[in-house]
């Protein structure tokens, strides 16, 4: 069953056509990774899906509801949660308070504070600490927990691995199967191509705002991906 359906979506970032007539479908329970070089329009796409940037044209449907013009806070109720680039935790709030902001527009679902603490056990003893005192990887985990606590149908993750050590990234991605098993669909944007290929059911490669390659990781050769990523050939 299709959860998210994007049709001919164009988003401008200033004068730049950051996303250019993109169409994309996402099935329930799937993990889709979007890869692409810097400036390919990946983050703009996610921001448009979360309602932070408004599209110039095209439509976005979530479970057959047109949400193209909904503002960000209404999309949370509709079932979309974005883990923003750079984590963006609330600096003056504690770890637990950061997580609790995710419950403000809580939908019914499997995720609760206890469940997040089970997913990331280290958080329990650090919950009273200020969020700004955490390491980058820990902040990323809190940002994911915060997003999950609204019980989204669709979890958007922007540049999870940015600025983090590979071992930390791997550890955070280890939580992904459990998140998907709980019924959440994930759309992740990833610059680390090999990491994306490892965790995703399908990948889309963006180049200048258009999808130039799509498929299952097993069916794509590294040469195809390389060409799509850098825009070489054809």
């Amino acid at each position, binding site marked *: 069953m299709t959860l998210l359906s994007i049709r001919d979506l164009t988003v401008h970032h200033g004068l730049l056509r950051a996303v250019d007539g993109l169409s994309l479908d996402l099935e329930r329970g799937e993990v889709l990774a979007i890869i692409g070089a810097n400036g390919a329009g990946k983050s703009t796409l996610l921001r448009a899906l979360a309602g932070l940037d408004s599209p110039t044209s095209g439509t976005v449907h979530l479970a057959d509801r047109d949400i193209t013009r909904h503002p960000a806070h209404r999309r949370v109720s509709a079932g979309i949660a974005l883990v923003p680039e750079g984590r963006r935790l609330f600096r003056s*709030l504690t770890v637990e*308070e950061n997580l609790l902001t995710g419950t403000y527009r809580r939908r019914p679902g499997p995720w609760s504070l206890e469940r997040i603490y089970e997913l990331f056990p280290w958080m329990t003893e650090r919950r009273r600490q200020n969020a700004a005192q955490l390491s980058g990887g820990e902040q990323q985990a809190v940002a994911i927990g915060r997003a999950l606590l609204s019980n989204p149908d669709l979890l958007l993750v922007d540049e999870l691995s940015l600025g983090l050590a590979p071992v930390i990234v791997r550890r955070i991605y280890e939580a992904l199967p459990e998140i998907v098993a709980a019924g959440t669909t994930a759309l992740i944007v990833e610059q680390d191509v090999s990491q994306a290929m490892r965790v995703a059911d399908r990948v889309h490669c963006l180049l200048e705002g258009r999808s130039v390659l799509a498929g299952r990781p097993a069916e794509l050769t590294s040469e195809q991906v390389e060409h799509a990523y850098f825009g070489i050939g054809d």
Partner: protein
Amino acid sequence: MQWINALVQGLLLGGLYALFATGLSLMFGVMRIVNLAHGDLAVVASFLALALVGGTGLPLWVVIVVTVPLFALLGYLTQRVLLQGSLSSGPMATLLVTFGLSIVLQNVLLEIFSADTRTLDSGSFATSSFHLGPITVGWLPLVTFLLAGAVLAGIGVFLSRTGLGRMLRASSDDRETASLVGADSRHVYGVATAIAFATVALAGLMFAVRSSFDPATGPSRLIFAFEAVVIGGLGSLWGTLLGGIVLGVTQSIGSQIDPAMTLLAGHLVFLAVLAFRPQGLLAGRTA
């Protein structure tokens, strides 16, 4: 002994300054709006109460109970109708809007109530006092202080314990990310302004019982709020309380030295903080 007395009177006055400054601090902390009409709003509340007492003959405490929620509602509407639109045009636009509001309010008050100086009469309560050892403590300053403390503590609990309060602090940190977890910034801002207006109304009524006011009193009151906020540290509720108390105690001790020193002493402490500790005494954490 008169020095201890000055200290106690200053402490009690400081609670009122803190309550008065809270709204200014909250609106700046959450929305980055410097509300230049803050002092005038306190005066509007005073005149409104004066008109209500005169018009209906209701006791003062009933009028206070009516005026404060009315101002909260007024605050919410002011944010949604007047300030929200100017927010997207940058800080200069909101400054101009609140400056304009300040002038309009002063002139409307002048038109309706004339330039006469008034006081809110609370009967014998305003002058009654009790002895605490060698010190005489007025009931009015004490009740004012306790009420201010209770209101500040209540706001503190609201900000730290409730979902909406957390959203206020989250929006203050990062508005865009707060919208990602479902905060409708217009509503959150409305609530922040409602709290600001309610506290400024309450403070305005207490000022009105303590001392006289006229339509042009607002700006000179505003400076006290600014000083309390800057001394305490921007965006910190407990900093504002500390700032208010420091200001109150300084003024009280200043007047003990020489009555003409009252306001000057406060301004000097304010200047010293700006020069040597511009982040305020309790800087850092929001709320």
